Structures are given as C-alpha cells and as structure tokens.
C-alpha cells in the first residue's frame, strides 16, 4: 500500500508538471496577449506603447525563461501579479475560491442526494410509470444546457416572485449565503444528478440480478435491506468513479452558472482572465483546478479499497 501511495504521488507530480507545460504553451498559442487586449479598448494599436507594456510584463523574454520564472515563483508561493488589476494574483484568486468551493460542494451534494435515491427507486420499480417519469427527467437533465436552465430559473423567479436570486451584494449571514447559492447549485447539479441517477439505475439493475441478491431475499431479508444494504453497496463502486469525474466537470458547469447567476467565483473569473490574457491568473487558477482534480481522483482510488474490501492494490 505504501509503495502504491508513493507511485501515485509521483504520478500526481508528473501530471501537474505536464499540465503546467500544456497550459503555459496553450495560453501563448492563443492569438493576442494582454497588450493587444488593452489596446482593444483603445480602438487602436500603438506599436511603441505595446512593446513597452510587453517589456514591463516580461512578455518579450524567451518562453522558457517565462516558464521558469513562473514555476520558480509558484514553488516559493509567489503567484505573480495580475496583468489587469496590477495586484498580487493571490489577492485576486484567494477570496473567490471559497465561493466556488461552496457552490461546487452544494451542487455535488444536490446531484448525489437527488441522483442516487432516484436511481435506486427507478431500478427497483423498473418499467413502472414512476420509472418512465424519472427516466424522462434524467434525459432532460442531460440534454438541457446549464445556461439555458439557469436563465429559465431566473425568469421564473422574476415572474412568480418579482425577485431574482443573483449575487449583487455579499450575503449577510451563512443562511443567506446558503439560500443564495442553493438555486445556482441546483441548476448546475441537475445535469450531474441526471447522470448519477441513470448510472445508479443501470448499476442497481445489474446487481439486483445477481445470485447473492436472490440468496438475501431467500433468507428473508426485507426489501429495504436487500436494496440498500446488499445491492446499493455493491452498485456504488462505479458511481464513486463517476462522482469523482463529475466533480471535475462541475467546474465547466460552474463557469456558465456563475456567469448567469452573477456569482463572483473563480470559474467566472477564469473566463474573464482568459479573455484578458491575464496569464498569471489563468496559469495559477488552472493549476489549482488541476490539483483539485488530481487529488479528487487520488481519493476516489483510495475509496475503492475502503468500499470494496476485495480490492487490494498490488505492489
């Protein structure tokens, strides 16, 4: 186990290194840099002033030097300065992380709490009217774009309650915050819940046909015990993988949702930073998200062993 952990840890470092190179190079392949975008709002380009800005920001140096400068700073905890706000990147990024983290956690909780029970019900009552209704709901969840659903929710709130659940001022209490974030979390979590529900249903259907389920029933176990203790426990393994992957995909959904609900989180901030070619913000944020995804996958791998005692990692 210790060897496996060490190997996984090394792999994590290698993955992060690979991501850092890819994001660094990709960003510079995108046409235009911060100087171009700054001049975009001036409606012209002054070559002399543009060169001066590039020199000040170190963009005229060889790309390898720029990369080394960034990674060197990152290892020392120096994330550099935002090109746009001219403030330390950490000061721009740090206050936004908790907002997105809370939103993502709420969305994930929503998708699991809705998706798993409904998937179980759908499987247990296979081909019933309820099953058909739930399958239609899950299909619509998978096919509905998050921004469209978000806008529909906002329009419904405005026409039904004459108010709009968007972020214009910082919430005054944790309860206010929970209320404010729950609507966008539901909007973004709906798609994930649909996926989880469908996967739970198919995994459960497979497990419910196994001999040990028949044995459990023959032993007189209640339906509830059969479904939740014996079947769900064995069906949940592929779900854990999917939930891990969905956590990463949520970031994509959050970009749209944060924009529609005007939530000042990192996802929306990342898009703006890309638009402005604010390299220090984009690079550090992508690295942060990559770190989260890599760690989440690592935890999922460990969870396999916890959830299924038959799994033991080879040396």
């Amino acid at each position, binding site marked *: 186990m210790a060897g496996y952990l060490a190997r996984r840890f090394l792999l994590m470092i290698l993955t992060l290194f690979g991501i850092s190179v890819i994001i660094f190079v990709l960003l510079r392949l*995108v*046409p*235009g*840099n911060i100087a*171009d*975008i*700054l*001049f*975009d*709002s*001036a*409606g*012209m*380009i*002054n*070559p002399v*002033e543009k060169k*001066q*800005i590039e020199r000040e920001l170190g963009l005229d140096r060889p790309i390898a030097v720029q990369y080394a400068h960034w990674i060197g700073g990152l290892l020392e905890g120096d994330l550099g300065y*935002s090109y*746009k*706000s*001219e*403030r330390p990147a950490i000061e*721009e990024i740090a206050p936004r992380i908790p907002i997105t983290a809370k939103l993502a956690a709420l969305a994930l909780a929503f998708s699991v709490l809705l998706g798993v029970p409904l998937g179980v019900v759908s499987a247990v009552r296979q081909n019933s009217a309820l099953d058909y209704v739930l399958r239609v709901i899950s299909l619509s969840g998978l096919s509905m774009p998050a921004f469209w659903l978000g*806008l529909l929710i*906002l*329009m419904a*709130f*405005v*026409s039904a309650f*004459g*108010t*709009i659940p*968007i972020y*214009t*001022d910082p919430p005054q209490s944790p309860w206010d915050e929970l209320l404010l974030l729950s609507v966008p979390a539901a909007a973004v979590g709906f798609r994930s819940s649909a996926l989880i529900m469908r996967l739970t249903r198919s995994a459960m259907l497979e497990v419910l046909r196994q001999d040990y389920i028949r044995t459990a029933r023959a032993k007189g176990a209640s339906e509830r015990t059969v479904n939740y203790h014996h079947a769900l426990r064995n069906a949940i393994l592929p779900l854990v993988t999917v939930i891990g992957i969905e956590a990463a995909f949520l970031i994509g959904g959050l970009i749209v949702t944060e*924009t*529609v*609900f*005007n939530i*000042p989180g990192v996802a*929306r*901030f990342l898009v*703006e930073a890309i*638009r402005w*070619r604010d390299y220090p913000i984009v690079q550090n944020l992508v690295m942060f998200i990559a770190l989260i995804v890599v760690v989440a996958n690592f935890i999922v791998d460990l969870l396999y062993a916890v959830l299924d005692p038959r799994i033991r990692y080879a040396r």
Partner: protein
Amino acid sequence: MRRPFHACVTVGCLAGAVLFVAAAQAAEPKHGGILKLYHRESPGSASIHEEATYSTNVPFMPVFNNLVIYDQHVAQNSLQSIVPELAASWAWGKDNTELTFRLRQGVKWHDGNPFTSKDVKCTIDMLMGKSSAKFRKNPRENWYQNVAEITTNGDYEAVFHLKRPQPALLALLASGYSPIYPCHVSPADMRQHPIGTGPFKFVEWKQNESIKLTRNPDYWKRGRPYLDGIEFTIISNRSTAMLAFIAGRLDMTFPTEVSIPLLKDVAAQAPQAVCKLAPLNVSTNIILNRDTPPFNNPAIRRALALTLDRKAFVDILSEGKADIGASMLPPPEGVWGMPKKMLETITGYGPDVAKNRAEARALMEQQGYGPDKRLNIKVSTRNLAVYRDPAVILIDQLKEIYIDGELEPVETGSWFAKVARKDYVIGLNLTGNSVDDPDQNFYENYACGSERNYTQYCNKELEARFDQQSIETDIEKRKKLVWDIDKQLQEDVARPILFHGRQATCWQPYVKGVTVMVNSSYNGYRYEDLWLDK
C-alpha cells in the same frame, strides 16, 4: 345657490394649493440614497485617459472634473452647451491662438491636496507625451496636436497656446474623456485607485464584482451631489442584468446598453420603467484595404459603394430604429451631419437601390467580373454579434455585384493587430465618436498617419480642408465646410458608413435628474444632479 358655488371654489383652491405644494415638494431634489446600476464588464482600468471605451467613463467620470464640461442637463452636446467646471471662466485671446482658463479656487483633490494650475499643465503635458510620467497607452494624443504648450500664471490660471486657432478645442476639453488628473498621483495608481476632484470619491473596485463610489463631502459645488453613493454591480450576462433591472434590484441599466428587442421586453415586463432611446454616435462601417486588389481599384470601390442598401441594414438589425448618415452623426440629434437632401446626392445613398446596383454591376463588368467570373474575398470582422451580424448582411449585398464574400470572424484580441498590419481585404467595423465635432472625427479617423485611421486613407488636399473647417469660428460657415468634406469622404469610399446605431437607457421612475445625451455616449455621467425620490 351662490354659497355652494363659493364653497366649491374654496375647496378647489385648497385642493389646488395642496397639489401645488405637493408637486413643488416632489420636484425638490432630495439628498441621500445609493444609486445602484449594473456595469456590463470589468473595465480595463479606472484611468479615463488611458482607455477609449465608455466602460471606463461611466463609472469613473463621477470621480473627476474637467476644466469645462457639456451641460449635464442639455441632451445635445454642442459648443453652446459647454459650461465651466474646474475653470471658473475662459477667454480666447491673441488671434484665437491663446485660451486662458481662470481656475476655481479652494478645490481639493480627494486626498486633501489643493488643486492648482500645475495639475492642468501636467495633465495636458502627459496627454501630449511631454512629461516624464507616461500613460501606459495614450489613445487621444492627437486631440492635442494643435496645442503648442501650456503655461501657468500663478496657481489659478492656465493658458493653452495653440499653433493655429481651433475653437473646437473647447469641445474636446468638455468631453468625458478630458478629466484633469492630479500631478502628485502616478498614472499606475490612477489605473487602480483614481483620485479626482469630482462629486464622488472612489471606494473600491473588485474585479468582475463591483465598483463603489461614495459622496465627496468636500465637493466644491455646494449642495452636490445629492446621492450618498453609486454602486455598479458588474453583470456580464446581459439577460441576467436586464432581469435584475426588471425585478427592481437595480435603479438603472448600464447607459445605452438596452437594445431595441430588449427595450420591448422592458416595456412589457417593467412598464413603470422610464426608457430613452438615443443615438450613440457609433457608426457601423466598412474598412477597405486600399493597397491591395481588388479594392486598390477605384472602380471596384465605387461599385461597392453603389451596392449598399443601408435601409436593409437598419430594418434587419434595429427594426428601422437606426439612422442613415455620412461620417458625422445625422440631424436632428447630430449637430454636424449633412441634410438628408444633400446626403442622397452621394454615390450609393440615393433611394433607388436597383438603379444603383445596375450601375455597380456595369462597373464590375468593365473590370472583367460577371455572373461567370465572380470575385472571391474574405469579409473580416471581430467575432462579436454586433460586428458579425452586419457583416453577414454585407456579404449578402456583395453578391449583387458578383462578389462572393466569406465571413472571417477574428478573435477580439487580434482584431486591431490584424487591422494595423492591413492583413484584410474588407472588414466590418464600428467607430465611436466621443465628441460630436468634426475635429475629433476627421483628425482621428481620416487624417494621414492617425492610429485610428485603420484604412490609412490619406488625402492631403482634404486634410488641408480639415484645418480650414477647424479654424472657422462661424458655425454656419463651418457646417457647410464640414458637409463638403464629409461628402468627399463618402465619395472617396474612405470608410463607407452603413448606419448610426441607437440604444436605450432605462431607469426606475424614482430616479430623477437623468439626462441621456443624444449625440454622444461618452459625456453624460457626472451624476452630481441625480437624486432618488423614494
């Protein structure tokens, strides 16, 4: 019978008096309250002098003062509507080549330092590129190309020495783009934490989140501003922003940000809202690469001018609510636009589109093109809907003269670099004029060597006429000169103008004192006279 009549008269008089008093009280501006509006984006910086977008003007104009300003209660900006601000008065002298400003005394910067003539000098010197402190970018340097130098006479007098007379310099100085900056604050600090003398002090700017201003209690204008503060919530999604306004979460929309279709939504869902549709003084136009085929050929340029059906653009894109004009904004809102009768004499502006296109086809055939030999070109434009949509209509209209256009959407970040390299054949562009004055428009967009003259159209003879109109002090005479120049620009197909757009601003009925400028979307945001009746 008489008694009841008298009673009625008395009751009527009393009721009338009560109503009169109530009306008078209602009209009396009230102090207090925070004005809440949305901002369409997080602007590039807070430094008005370094930006050329009203995304910066709107939130930061209330922080500053100019020497002179367009009267914020007069919708049409003109030389006649200019009033003093940091200058208590001004006077022209020495053959109209000296402009002397007597400055207001006792004015303080928001950090407590006194405002003096040194601040005027250092601001203009910086704009002219003459000072050691430099702007990171200086998009309006050419506004001051006729200024030889600024001198000061004590702390409260500044003199602009001009190379030649230029009455319209005042028009440029009255723009929202002409605030006076403090000498003691660096350009870098002004980008993030602006210090001004204006009615509101800068509080904070959270990127992508909000911009907050608070009342300046030491404002030099007694009793102003009425508001305690202004808060801009940055909402980049326009649908969300409009819904927030409709739901009553915001007092006002971002100025001139409500398109024609959205205006209908607001009217239907928030009928109490007050909306004003006005020209932006932003033209949608075509840029041609005059150095390479096919548009290095004057006959093909003329054919292009003849094929344009401007009314179709206006009808399709803005439901008929945009204006057809030449380079200067057309009347009645535009001060310098030529009369309709004259406009229709310009090539391609005549109402008989079929006849124009027949002439255009004949020109193309003379150049060897026809139904069997069509010209293939790329139509480049920024990858934004407001650019793409008219480009698609343009491509459709080019088909009429044997030109098959292919849309080339260009990512915003590389658009101006591409245009500056002249790496295009034909492009669809938008041009905003911050001041409705020929000096701003002609020198900026059509003068030889100007950075914003994207096509690098250069006509020295016409440029001499730019100077001629600039010197002219008689407005009616100047208008005629301007019309002739504008007509020539269109005949030369310098930058064919398709239309001048209009958009609306909406506010809740309790927001009072709003004046939407009708010939510029850059100059009307001092907000010192706005108040909330609630």
